[in-house]
């Protein structure tokens, strides 16, 4: 409560000094003028905006019902000691669960694994996806076939694909394990992580490629022709013309994939079940929440994952601001 009181009090005090120094009459018009300068809305524009809100309303309502409620409920649960095995001990304990989780070595190991998987897979997917996108964009003959073939991994259910990877790496029966002298890579940490990442990359590179291809379509043909006559090699055309123009599409693709990768679950669940310290944060939350029946700790982990994802999204959205090609945001600020 005391934390909350301070800023409010400060605000009031600042308001009062402002009023005292400029006089009430001066302060009010100034404030109004400021608001008008920000949004000079005509009657027409305002009606349009109202219509916009109305059109959003049904979707917003559904969102509130199906996402806001669970989120708030998780937050509420995370503030309690609540283990279904000991329901009698349920009690409000404030932020104690957060302290428990954030000082726990398993959490940080899982966090490290998640971060590693996120960074490595997204980086490799970006490169491979760009290559695939360029190929799909360029091919003139058999475009449909090339695109379909490239998209097949993305169309397969993750769990099914994960099982096929697991069997492939199982010593004795798996074709890939046999290639490597019948070793059992899924029983060791490093090789397990590598296989998890491989499965992730194989599965989602097509999605990346699809998003990037949409970006490639944004690059005007004339721009590339101009660069050619200006003396650019194909590599220079790619780095100096295509990439800057595509930047918004690349950021969107990266955002989607980073958020997805950070929540990695099904591949790990099937391939290692989190053994040998290969758990991701989602895996850990699942283990505590569903298997351990510890609603308090599990919810705390879920909330932490939510916060991490929100931070990632926020950072990317900040980057978008100046990413639109030709915008002079950089100069105006």
């Amino acid at each position, binding site marked *: 409560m005391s934390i909350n009181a301070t800023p409010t009090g400060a605000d009031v005090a600042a308001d009062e000094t402002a009023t005292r120094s400029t006089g009430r009459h001066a302060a009010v018009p100034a404030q109004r003028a400021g608001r008008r300068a920000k949004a000079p809305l005509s009657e027409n524009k305002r009606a349009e905006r109202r219509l916009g809100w109305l059109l959003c309303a049904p979707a917003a309502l559904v969102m509130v019902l199906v996402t806001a409620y669970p989120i708030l409920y998780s937050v509420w649960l995370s503030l309690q000691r609540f283990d279904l095995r000991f329901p009698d001990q349920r009690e409000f304990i404030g932020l104690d669960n957060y302290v428990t989780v954030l000082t726990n070595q398993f959490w940080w190991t899982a966090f490290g694994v998640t971060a590693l998987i996120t960074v490595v897979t997204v980086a490799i997917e970006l490169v491979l996806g760009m290559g695939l996108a360029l190929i799909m964009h360029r091919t003139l003959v058999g475009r449909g076939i090339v695109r379909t073939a490239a998209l097949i991994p993305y169309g397969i259910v993750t769990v099914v694909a994960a099982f096929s990877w697991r069997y492939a790496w199982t010593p004795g029966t798996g074709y890939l394990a046999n290639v490597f002298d019948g070793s059992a890579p899924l029983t060791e940490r490093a090789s397990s992580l590598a296989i998890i990442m491989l499965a992730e990359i194989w599965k989602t590179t097509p999605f990346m490629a699809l998003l990037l291809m949409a970006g490639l379509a944004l690059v005007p043909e004339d721009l590339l*022709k101009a660069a050619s006559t200006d*003396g650019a090699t194909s590599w220079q055309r790619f780095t100096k013309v295509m990439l800057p*123009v595509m930047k918004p599409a690349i950021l969107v693709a990266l955002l989607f994939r980073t958020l997805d990768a950070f929540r990695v679950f099904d591949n790990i669940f099937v391939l290692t079940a989190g053994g040998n310290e290969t758990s991701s944060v989602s895996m850990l939350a699942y283990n505590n929440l569903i298997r351990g029946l510890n609603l308090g700790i599990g919810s705390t982990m879920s909330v932490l994952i939510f916060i991490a994802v929100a931070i990632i999204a926020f950072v990317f959205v900040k980057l978008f601001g100046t990413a639109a090609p*030709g*915008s002079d945001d950089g100069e105006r600020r």
Partner: protein
Amino acid sequence: MADIVLDKVSKKFPDGTVAVQDVDLEIADGEFVILVGPSGCGKSTTLNMIAGLEDISSGELRIAGQRVNDKAPRDRDIAMVFQSYALYPNMTVRENMAFPLRLAKLDRATIDAKVDEAAKVLELTPLLDRKPANLSGGQRQRVAMGRAIVRQPKAFLMDEPLSNLDAKLRVQMRTVVSRLQKQLGTTTVYVTHDQTEAMTLGDRVVIMRGGAVQQVGPPQELYDHPRNLFVAGFIGSPSMNFLHAAVSEGRLRTALGDVAIGDRLRRQIEGADAPRELILGIRPEHFEDAELIDEETRRRGMEFDAPVDIVESMGSDKYVYFTVEGERATAAELEELAADAGAADFAGAGSSLVTRLSAESAVREGENRRVWFNLDKIHLFDPSTGRNLTLHEGRAAGALAD
């Protein structure tokens, strides 16, 4: 600077479209050549082949005497200006103009000096730090020009560079382009849709149709001595009037009356396989109000009466539209021209006659007026081949020539 030679150059796209067919063209060093023709006739394709942006299917392209068919665009040392300007959106004006120089690995000081120089010529100096998105159409166009001139290439290729500007700006930029080209003396190939640009800018004009060159020559020559129906109808605004003409007993029966023909023409149309139907072409300025003609002039022409449809007074002269009876002139070329210009702009083959009379004429709408036209200036075309029959050793001689 260099000359450009196209030797039987053709382009066939993978889908079988033949966009350019056996184009022969010699562009001298420092010459300003205009490519015109209706939409889809292969102008851009020709330009792209010269730039190296499209492969040449057959034939040879030589720049400065050297075969460049297989050279990449970056090795041809040619600058191109696009209709869309194609400015790099992420770079400032300065960076846009410096881009080709940076790629050529010039040192910083030289680059800055050259960019500043070009910016001064094109009055872009105050805009150097802006992004293209914050420029007007005319300014973007000038930046595109600037990017082309900074590196002093062997040739400029321009693909409808002024088409996206409004009419007033286009006139202004036309003089800029013309002055710039004269100053720099760089070989230039310029594609346009615009009559005025074609007539005023270039040393020579190349008229294309369906991938083939129809005629090459100085603008005035194309205007006065069109080799065929297509060229005659394409050049000139308002366009040439075309009338149906039936050959009978050494005379031409037309909606304007019977036209006598000279010996040379008679010999041409008396052969066994000669066409019995011709198309008579006459430009609007070769008509005159019969009241304003002296006897001497009157003898060189013919007169007819027709109802006046519309009078448009331009101050210096009057455009008068007459309705004439009789069969319409029909030929594939005329239909194509009408389709390209939009039927409203191409009145040439309609039943209405466009004339340009002097301002003193007292002509009024609705009346019947007597009009004279100059027989020395009429052209006769064979409707099946489009050939201009009045052309003798490259000069149009009119109907009466012996």
